[in-house]
């Protein structure tokens, strides 16, 4: 597609359930970012990939959060044993090769996760 695609758009999980959120970046984009946006807040950085390499995961809030991008394209953010505080919108962004990585980011519509 033409833009960054995220699925599902909405996810309701029971507390303790594992979830997997998918991001399809724009074709050919090297850099991929995940952000968490709590209600009424700005997005907060979670992790960054350059191709398949996860170069920074300093924003992941706990070891329950795990992200991967095994073939350098699609990425999955996995949250194990979800807690209510994990409820948020999870945004994915990608940027093309040759761009200063953080100056040409294109965002997906996000996945709204609600933990009940």
């Amino acid at each position: 597609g033409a833009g960054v695609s995220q699925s599902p758009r909405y996810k309701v999980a029971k507390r303790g359930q594992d979830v997997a959120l998918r991001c399809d970046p724009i074709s050919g984009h090297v850099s991929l970012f995940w952000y968490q946006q709590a209600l009424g807040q700005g997005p907060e950085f979670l992790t960054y990939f350059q191709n398949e390499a996860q170069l920074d995961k300093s924003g992941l809030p706990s070891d329950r959060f795990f992200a991967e991008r095994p073939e350098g394209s699609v990425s999955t953010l996995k949250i194990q044993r979800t807690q209510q505080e994990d409820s948020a919108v999870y945004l994915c962004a990608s940027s093309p090769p040759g761009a200063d990585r953080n100056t040409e980011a294109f965002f997906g519509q996000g996945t709204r996760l609600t933990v009940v």
Partner: protein
Amino acid sequence: AQSVTQLDSQVPVFEEAPVELRCNYSSSVSVYLFWYVQYPNQGLQLLLKYLSGSTLVKGINGFEAEFNKSQTSFHLRKPSVHISDTAEYFCAVSLTGGFKTIFGAGTRLFVKA
């Protein structure tokens, strides 16, 4: 560490009036500055960015922003707003050559008829 402060959480304004959304940042090194807009249930869309050069930056939808290094500000302006400009606006900063972008808490612009 970098941080971003958006001074107003909500800004109500009448249609066709001018608007300014305020943003201050802190950083001890050179940064890039951005404004993004987020419509309900949508992702972020880049309005404009300052990388270097002219301190007055023009973006999409008639918005512009001015980088003021001495005041560490990057305020967003539009001379005449439309109902369709109602949205959440985020100011953001990142290190030059870096990859992590720090966002402010957002300003809700509400344009009234």
